[in-house]
């Protein structure tokens, strides 16, 4: 197990560095620097600013300085929000995005898997069609269509939920965003779970379990689920990536001041450090999730040799 973790870390760190380098390179290569949109400044002042932000040094050196700061946990100052560091900005948006994200992923995984199993067990019955119908909605109505629609219906017409604002994390403000965010993933996961469960239920060892006279419920919980859930474990990291993507849109639509908002603003304004900072955060989180899903897989499937 420890070997697995170490091996993953060995791959993860260079990967992160490559991603950082990629973003760094792109941002620097792009026409226009972080300060070109502002009023034209007298050359001496521009020079001073460039020095202060290390923009006059050779690229490699800039990169090196940046990396060393990151290693110490310092993501640098924001180029646009002049009084704030990137760390501060991210920390302010973090609780919001975290609440949104964790809720969405927990709901997606549990509800999605549950629906998938039910659909598989009650295959070709009304329940199956109903579950697949819901899943179809999640796949065909993208979150940026669904979110306004839900807002319109539940927010404006029925007046049940507020349609924007964070309001200190009030539950009412969270419901519409979380639903809009998780529905696409619930759709994908339930379909995946359904076909995985159907495949598992057709396998030989389930036939043996039936031949032993084991009751249906135990067959599913004790024999089938552990096998059928494996593809979902593999999907954990991409699912989170999907939620990160979706949260950008959702935060925009519902006016939630989370990290996604900062990212978009930073990208549009060429705030290099902010964009890199968010990117690093997301990438690290995903690397961690990949590691987590590998460990989970090894735990659930004794056939996986931990090399």
């Amino acid at each position: 197990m420890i070997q697995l973790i170490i091996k993953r870390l060995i791959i993860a760190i260079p990967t992160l560095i490559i991603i950082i380098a990629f973003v760094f390179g792109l941002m620097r290569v792009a026409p226009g620097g972080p300060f070109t949109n502002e009023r034209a400044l007298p050359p001496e002042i521009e020079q001073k600013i460039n020095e202060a932000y290390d923009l006059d040094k050779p690229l490699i050196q800039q990169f090196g300085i940046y990396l060393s700061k990151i290693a110490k946990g310092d993501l640098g100052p924001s180029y646009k929000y002049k009084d704030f560091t990137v760390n501060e900005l991210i920390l302010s948006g973090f609780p919001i995005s975290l609440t949104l994200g964790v809720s969405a992923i927990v709901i997606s995984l549990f509800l999605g898997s549950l629906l998938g199993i039910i659909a598989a067990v009650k295959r070709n019955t009304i329940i199956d069609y109903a579950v697949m119908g819901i899943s179809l909605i999640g796949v065909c109505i993208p979150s940026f269509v669904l979110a306004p629609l839900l807002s319109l219906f539940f927010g404006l017409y029925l007046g049940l939920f507020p349609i924007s604002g964070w309001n200190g994390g009030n539950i009412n403000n969270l419901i519409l965003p979380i639903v809009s965010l998780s529905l696409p993933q619930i759709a994908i996961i339930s379909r995946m779970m359904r076909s995985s469960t159907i495949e598992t239920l057709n396998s030989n060892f389930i036939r043996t379990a039936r031949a032993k006279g084991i009751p249906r419920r135990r067959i599913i919980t004790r024999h089938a689920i552990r096998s059928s859930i494996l593809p979902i474990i593999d999907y954990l990291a991409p699912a989170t990536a999907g939620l990160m993507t979706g949260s950008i849109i959702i935060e925009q639509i519902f006016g939630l001041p989370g990290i996604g908002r900062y990212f978009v603003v930073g990208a549009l304004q060429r705030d290099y450090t902010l964009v890199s900072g968010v990117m690093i955060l997301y990438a690290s989180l995903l690397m961690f999730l990949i590691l987590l899903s590998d460990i989970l897989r090894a735990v659930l499937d004794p056939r996986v040799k931990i090399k």
Partner: protein
Amino acid sequence: MNTKHYSKDDLDNILSVKGNSLYSDAFKRLLRNKASLISLIVLSLITLLSFFGPYLLQYDFYETDWNSIYLPPNIENGHYFGTDGNGRDLLVRILYGGRLSLSIGIIATLVSVSIGVTYGTIAGYIGGKVDTIMMRIVEILYAMPYLIFVIILMVVFGRNIYLLFIAIGAVEWLTMARIVRGQTISIKEKEFIEASKSLGQSSLLIIIKHIIPNLAGTIIVYITLMVPSVIILESFLSFLGLGVQEPLTSWGVLISEGAREMETAWWLLIFPGLFMVLTLASLNFIGDGLRDALDPKEY
């Protein structure tokens, strides 16, 4: 025991016969699937309307009419779907938007498919360490939030429409690569490849002549499933203001405008949304139908 010795011509014959009967059989099955059939009709309708419809309508795409802003859907004055804040006819805009959304869908998908198929067949065919490394890269990329990458690309290189095609395609090839690699591996292990090799055909030839035609079915299925993703991705970007720019429009742009105005002008959201949902749903049904038709495991 009898051992049959196959000549090169025999092999080609066997493969081509197998190919024909599989596809015509599959096509018949597809047409029998009601959902797929309806979807094909709906999709064709939407496509035809998008490309040819505007010529049949009285209003122009650019036409602004300050006397007719925010009109709800109306049969008499010809604004069947209503107008937007600039007095522009919504129906025409939706159809023009359709041209763009659908074109991006297809072109970007083709880009993805090319990259994905090439990558996947190489990884699957060569196998071994090369395969492991290639697939690890895919795995890591797969877990990255693609929108973020695309946003960065769009911001850096400007909001060029052609770049949009490439950027989206460059992000979506991963799934295709995975599937293609898996299929390549299982095809590779079939006996006729061994036979080809022993007859001295070069690897490249084997890939082109034998492996790719057998992949065709899978590739087609995944194309129909990929186009919706691409359309959604483009719409995401346009929604954020990073995708299609004025004066062009796409469904994503229209929905974004509609979402902003939905309290006063619900039609601006509902109609573009409807077109998008119908298109995505049709593509999904067709894709499912194709998948069932080519691989009838379920009864």
